[in-house]
């Protein structure tokens, strides 16, 4: 989740009070934020935010707002959401946008007292919202422009990649849309979003000047905000209307907090949306909830007073009225994360402070236990440790190469589709290859080697709902100059004797073992596993210069037999 940079003096200015670092750290908990670093010389704060569902907090303005409200105890009211005047500026959406990037929301902010801090926060906020909330600009992207250079109405439409051209931000020359995707760093980074379409989205004003090529890049002429800029157009495009609107609301509120004047922009859609065809943005999408006091008391584990709930929720930013044993809450317009009354219970607890709640030890009495499989595994581990075996633990995700030569004819592996590294591209299907990995790097460890692992494996199984099943397998391996079948058989024999499993060995062939020195372990007609002397080819391939014998059994299978008995 995002980590953002803020100048402390800027944050203090927005809060309206100079906070000590320790007071700040405490107050940051209100925003589920953590102070990572403060560099005194440069006045730089590094703050990490954990709530991916509260993008309004990913800026100096957002964090300051949450703290400012807590200090004042009063929610802040954003009147500009109630449009007094009709929107005079218009963006017209063309029909073709519906299948490419259907939604746009916009408003204007004027009278901005621009300085370095404001500009830095504006750019950072834009970046975090588009990258994280907008999933690398796929669902949401943002453009901010010099308002005074735009002649409305503005068209949001598609254009031919190779015919339309403009000078993009950060470049000196005119490029076509196609060239931008090829040559501009942002085009290279985000081009994948529009490439599937034959034509690309653009915003063009009535004079034919290009504002931007969403979600890739603004034009240098109109879309560059400078320290002397006072009036801007804020525009958000996206694939999800609610996320698009929320992003605009967050930006609008932040400009407002900095003293700007907000005015609506009318967007005309040729297709219907959840909010109609003609929408004047910003729109307050805030939810309204009626929650009985009992929900708070039950959720928190103590009786709370209605007035207290009202007070705490207000000092967290909600507009609250309380009457007849319930609160009516109007959520702040920059938030869209309240879906259930429990969300308000949490807001209450955060607002009051988690440390104000006395932990109560859970009194309910329950019986602790291990699964039968884990119990069996523990019994066997104890037995093998007592027989002089060293326990091993291995990774389950590994390379195909490690497993390939132990595959039986027709046997398949569970494979990863989005492979990052070939070293971690399949799940192991048995444990012996993991033990051979140990032998491959442990020739210097003094002999004899007697090792085992009881661990999970993924068995490819076309008939299973999930296409595979997870088994718990046990494998043991011995390695020393005289390691052989008979010694390994003794270990298996005494283990199965104590488990109470009668078994027999049936001569068999196996990819892992020397022909004629390998057997299937059969118990009550079920195949439990196999035992044998490891093939020299396999040892040579792993540069193991010591004979090895091994066995592997399924503990799920063993457990089934034990339960039946």
């Amino acid at each position, binding site marked *: 989740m995002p980590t953002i940079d803020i100048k402390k003096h800027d944050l203090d200015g927005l809060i309206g009070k100079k906070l000590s670092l320790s007071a700040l750290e405490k107050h940051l908990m209100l925003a589920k934020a953590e102070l990572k670093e403060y560099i005194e010389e440069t006045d730089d704060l590094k703050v990490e935010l954990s709530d991916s569902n509260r993008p309004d907090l990913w800026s100096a303005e957002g964090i300051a707002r949450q703290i400012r409200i807590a200090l004042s105890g009063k929610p802040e009211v954003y009147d500009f959401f109630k449009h007094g005047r009709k929107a005079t500026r218009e963006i017209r959406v063309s029909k073709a946008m519906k299948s490419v990037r259907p939604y746009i929301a916009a408003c204007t902010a004027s009278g901005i007292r621009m300085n370095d801090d404001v500009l830095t926060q504006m750019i950072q906020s834009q970046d975090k919202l588009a990258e994280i909330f907008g999933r690398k600009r796929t669902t949401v992207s943002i453009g901010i422009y010099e308002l005074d250079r735009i002649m409305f109405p503005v068209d949001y439409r598609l254009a031919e990649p190779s015919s339309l051209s403009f000078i993009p931000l950060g470049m000196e020359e005119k490029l076509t849309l196609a060239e931008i995707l090829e040559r501009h760093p942002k085009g290279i980074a985000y081009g994948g979003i529009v490439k599937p379409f034959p034509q690309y989205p653009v915003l063009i004003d009535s004079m034919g000047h290009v504002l931007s090529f969403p979600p890739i890049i603004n034009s240098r002429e109109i879309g560059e905000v400078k320290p002397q800029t006072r009036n801007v157009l804020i525009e958000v495009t996206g694939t999800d209307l609610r996320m698009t609107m929320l992003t605009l609301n967050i930006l609008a509120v932040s400009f407002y907090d900095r003293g700007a004047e907000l005015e609506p922009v009318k967007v005309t859609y040729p297709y219907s949306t959840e909010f109609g065809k003609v929408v004047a943005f910003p729109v307050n999408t805030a939810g309204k909830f009626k929650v009985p006091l009992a929900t708070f008391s039950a959720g928190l*584990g103590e009786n709370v007073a209605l007035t207290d709930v009202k007070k705490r929720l207000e000092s967290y930013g909600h507009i609250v009225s309380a009457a007849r044993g319930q609160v009516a809450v109007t959520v702040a317009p920059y938030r869209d994360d309240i879906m*259930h009354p429990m969300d308000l219970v949490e807001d209450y607890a955060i607002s009051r402070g988690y440390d104000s709640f006395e932990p109560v030890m859970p009194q309910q009495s*329950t019986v602790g236990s291990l699964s039968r499989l884990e119990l069996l595994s523990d019994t066997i581990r104890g037995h093998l440790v007592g027989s002089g075996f060293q326990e091993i633990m*291995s990774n389950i995700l590994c390379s195909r190469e490690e497993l390939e030569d132990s595959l039986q004819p027709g046997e398949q592996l569970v494979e990863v589709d989005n492979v990052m590294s070939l070293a971690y591209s399949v799940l192991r299907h048995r444990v012996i290859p993991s033990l051979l990995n140990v032998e491959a790097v442990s020739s210097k460890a003094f002999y004899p080697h*007697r090792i085992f692992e009881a661990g999970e494996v993924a068995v490819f199984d076309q008939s299973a709902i*999930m296409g595979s099943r997870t088994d718990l397998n046990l494998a043991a391996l011995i390695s020393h100059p005289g390691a052989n079948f008979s010694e390994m058989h003794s270990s298996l024999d005494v283990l199965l004797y104590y488990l109470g499993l009668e078994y027999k060995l049936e001569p068999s062939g196996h990819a892992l073992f020397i022909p004629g020195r390998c057997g299937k372990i059969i118990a009550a007609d079920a195949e439990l596993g196999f035992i044998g002397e490891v093939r020299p080819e396999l040892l040579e391939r792993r540069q193991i210069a010591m004979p090895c014998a091994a066995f592997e059994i399924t503990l799920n299978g063993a457990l089934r037999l034990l339960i039946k008995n």
Partner: protein
Amino acid sequence: MTTSELQKLLESFHPLEHKVLLSFDREGALSASDILTRSGLDESRLDMASGWLQSKGLLDVKDESVTSLVSLTEAGKEYLQKGTPEMRIINALKEGKQFTVKDIIQSWGMDPSEVSSAVGALKEDNAVRIVQGGVLEDTIGLVLVLPSYESIGKLLRAVSEGEPADLASFPADQRAAIQANFHKRGKSKGIFRITEKKNRSYTLTDDGKELLRLIKERGVVTEEASALTPEMLKQGTWKNKKFRAYNIALNPPRQSIGRKHPYKEFLDFVKYKFIGMGFEEMRGPLVESEFWDMDALFMPQFHPARNIHDVYFVKNPIAAKEIEEPFGKRVAAAHKDGGKTGSTGWRYAFDLDRAKRLILRSQGTAVSARTLASGPKIPGKYFSIARCFRYDAVDATHAPDFYQVEGIVLGAYINFKTLLGLLKLFGQEIAKAGEFQFRPAYFPFTEPSVELHVKHPELGWMELGGAGIFRPEVTKPLGVDVPVIAWGLGLDRMAMVALGIQDIRDLFSRDLDFVRTKKIQLNK
């Protein structure tokens, strides 16, 4: 040395040292060979024991002489059997045979250089000459030199009988002959080998004499035993034995033992803690559907909350055959508009195909979701130690797969305060923490959510885990109507400290020596 110092020395006397010391009379020097005879030791043991005695200041080397010992070389042994080349030629001539040098080489199986040097010597002594056709012929001179050639044969016999014989014991002329045949023919072809042997004689020092006196005075113990044997016990002979004291400061030989893996030992400790706190173990599959790993946990399919971590997708098959009903339908409704959970939902069209997509389990909470859907006990407590996979580049802080310790607590009286109480219990039991801090946190599936920070005795303040009360959007669709605490603990850092390692990959080290020798410090 004082008598008590000598007594002490005697305590740790090795049987070999005893034997050497006892072969001395009080006076006089003894040669090594005398000691060998008297003590019955072999040479290497005498060397060992005399070394020890010298280092203890009990024995001195008095005299060192060198003996030259003569033995036969391989060639010498062959000549002893077949005769020297010269005698073989002389004998053949005496028998009246006619032959050339070439004949000797071709039919007698002798080395050309051997033949030419033998013929050369005989010619020089005027014992043979070469006539027309290269044929050898004896001369009158042969009679004069014959005894000297015959004497070599006798000498070979004499040496072989006394082998290795002292060079000094031979008469002067034979000594000369030996030396001539040692030098003249060089090492490879020589028929005698002369080796030098150092012969020492030893005397006891004053301390040595005193110690010998003490041994004789004590008299009773004639034999020291190095080990108690079953025979001694059976026959009672141990009563007359003295057991040599060991040097117990020596390092013992290494042993290979059977042992639990140290990380597993740590996890066992955690496991038993949870059983002690009344938790029941739950298990789940390594390969999960997105449904159980994320959708059932109310993580929206197309929302940034889903990006909290990236996952590994399975290649074949790519999707589960089905989503268990009624859970599929109910979870879809919760996402879409809240269904019957009292929530607004995420307000989007839930994609059932996406839910079927198979992945490697990315969080232990998937196991909790399955348990909720399986009709759990109420009240009930469950835990799992589940292997999970994250799509991260592997490095010292990211393992390709790792364990998550997670669980749930179900009950009608579950609330925020009991959540804090449970976390406090975990902090006390598992991290032995005395101080706690609860911080607001965010998890897509819990509300309220909390992070537990504890003051660990060794690590200082650390985040021990995250927890919360499952959102009704999670529990209700899975058929659970009581509040449920969901918790997860981050124990890898504690495990790494307990094991004394810095690289998380070492938790699953392949190095047997590492696994055998790593100790685990459990803060029990």
